[in-house]
């Protein structure tokens, strides 16, 4: 049975039963994340080409709930394209991308996918530069995204507490009123991570999160990610191998748009094929 059929069937079942538990297939509320099969993200045989260049070529990958997965690979391996596909920025030519076992991500827009609980940090730190640090966080804060709510919006005490917590966590308490454009590169990276955290996503996609950070900042980032593991699932794309060594449990090596190897860092570093693509023949 194809996932589409399963999804359609479970929607129909939901319509009749109205309940949460319905034997096999475990019908949940629409939009709720079904983790019964032990996968929060599931990609199968994804293909994507740009003008004949195969950026993604038969990629299959899955992430378990609470996992911290590191993705490495040479330039052009398709790491950023993979994130674009997961977050709805580009549509693949073929393949399946599921969030949990019921949500077909290929049917949702970027904004919907973000609301479903997938947060993304860009390779180049992207914050709203003229807005203050606090306003950046406030915009990202979990809550309604509708126009009327944005007009009448007032922060609740609980939300303020949350913003204060995150400001402390990303160590920008003293900068909260500064325009984000005036922050240093490392601080912008942290602000963007903070914006992800207040969004409270279930899965975080982080594209080169420690690029341009000092050693000290990198270490703090590693600690932060390790503390997030378990409550959130994380997918980290990074080139900094010492950072990977610090946080990794499972490492996936991408090459030419497909998975080349997977395992612990030591295992993949010992893999002949991985050595070959990194060092050349």
């Amino acid at each position, binding site marked *: 049975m194809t996932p589409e059929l399963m999804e359609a069937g479970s929607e129909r079942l939901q319509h009749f039963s109205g309940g949460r538990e319905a034997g096999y297939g475990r019908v949940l509320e629409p939009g709720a994340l079904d983790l019964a099969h032990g996968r929060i993200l599931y990609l199968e045989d994804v293909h994507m080409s740009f003008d004949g260049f195969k950026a993604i070529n038969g990629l299959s990958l899955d992430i378990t709930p609470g996992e911290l997965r590191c993705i490495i690979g040479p330039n052009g391996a398709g790491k950023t394209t993979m994130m674009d596909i997961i977050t709805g920025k580009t549509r693949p030519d073929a393949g399946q991308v599921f969030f949990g076992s019921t949500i077909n991500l290929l049917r949702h827009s970027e904004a919907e996918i973000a609301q479903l609980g997938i947060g993304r940090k860009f390779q180049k730190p992207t914050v709203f530069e003229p807005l203050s640090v606090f*306003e950046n966080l406030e915009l990202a804060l979990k809550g309604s995204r509708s126009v009327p709510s944005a007009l009448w919006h007032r922060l609740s005490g609980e939300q303020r507490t949350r913003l204060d917590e995150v400001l402390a966590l990303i160590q920008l308490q003293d900068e909260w009123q500064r325009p984000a454009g005036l922050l240093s590169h490392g601080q912008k990276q942290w602000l963007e991570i903070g914006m992800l955290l207040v969004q409270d996503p279930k899965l975080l996609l982080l594209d080169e999160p420690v690029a341009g950070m000092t050693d000290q900042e990198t270490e703090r980032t590693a600690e932060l990610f390790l503390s997030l593991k378990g409550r959130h699932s994380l997918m980290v794309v990074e080139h900094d191998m010492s950072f990977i060594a610090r946080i990794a449990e499972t490492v996936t090596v991408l090459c030419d748009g497909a998975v080349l190897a997977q395992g612990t860092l030591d295992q993949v570093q010992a893999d002949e094929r991985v050595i070959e693509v990194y060092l050349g023949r």
Partner: protein
Amino acid sequence: MNTITMNAHQALFSRRGWTAFLIALLLVCAVAPLLNLWVPEGQVLHLSDYAVALLGKIMCYAICALAMDLIWGYTGILSLGHGLFFALGGYAMGMYLMRQIGSDGQYRSELPDFMVFLDWKSLPWHWSFSDSFVATLALIVLVPGLVAFVFGYFAFRSRIKGVYFSIITQAMTYAAMLLFFRNETGFGGNNGFTDFKRILGLPIATPQMRMGLFVLTGLTLLACLLLARWIMAAKFGRVLQAVRDAESRLMFCGYSPLPYKLAIWTLSAVMCGVAGALYVPQVGIINPSEMSVANSIEIAVWAAVGGRGTLIGPIAGAFAVNGAKSWLTVSAPEIWLYFLGALFVGVTLFLPQGLAGLAKKLTRRGASKT
């Protein structure tokens, strides 16, 4: 504890801002009428009818500049078709004013003169409600709003952005102009509507009526300013700025930009429509040249000269550019267009923040000296 973020909420205006607002209110509602109607002509303090008419007209333009700023300055979407919305509001008002002429036209007919001239026997369908003032008020808001909503929905849904969007808006107003030029469409062809006699049954060309329209325009401008300020102080305003600066970041934060763009785009069009409706009884004519491409570009120039992304800037820009225009077109009419072009280039090159940015820079320098 909530130690740092307690006072994060923005006030609508600062104390100084409210003072300036109240002074403007006083000038419009009390000082100008007194100086025009009460101080006799020939006295130094007398405000001439010419000045009242000019200022009333410029205040209509200022509403347009403010509307342009909402969509361009804050949301980063440059419209080169706002003249269309202005003209639609103007035409809705114009139709009502044409009906108010009654049978006092040249042909002594109940029909507007141009219809008699075209040998039409009855009013076309779209003139059905034009004799009702209430319906006219509704049309002034609904027609530009609806046109903008439908156009915006398709453009924004297709993610048309930047210069492509600007070009399409320009084509839109040009196409509308050609449509309104035609006699068959029932909008008076290239002559448009003119020779208005009454509004709400009262004669339109009296000093009292002129002053009434002036005060109404001033109040509308101030109300629009207040509304814009409220929107920009709310989270909504910050979402708009986020659309302008990093739209994809905003989408990955879970916001769909479409409803936000559509809301501000439609509001901006409605503000222009209202400005057009106030403009027509004051200048006494509306014709399709209001939809010409140059008019829409001028609105953008006012906003750019005044300072995009500030609220007071575009209003100041509309006054400065149109003040210069009415002076130059009298004293040296041949250089006006060169002046306008040079002004736009100069402001873009040397004053990207416009007059508002210049004022800010000067006050800061002054403050650092003392």
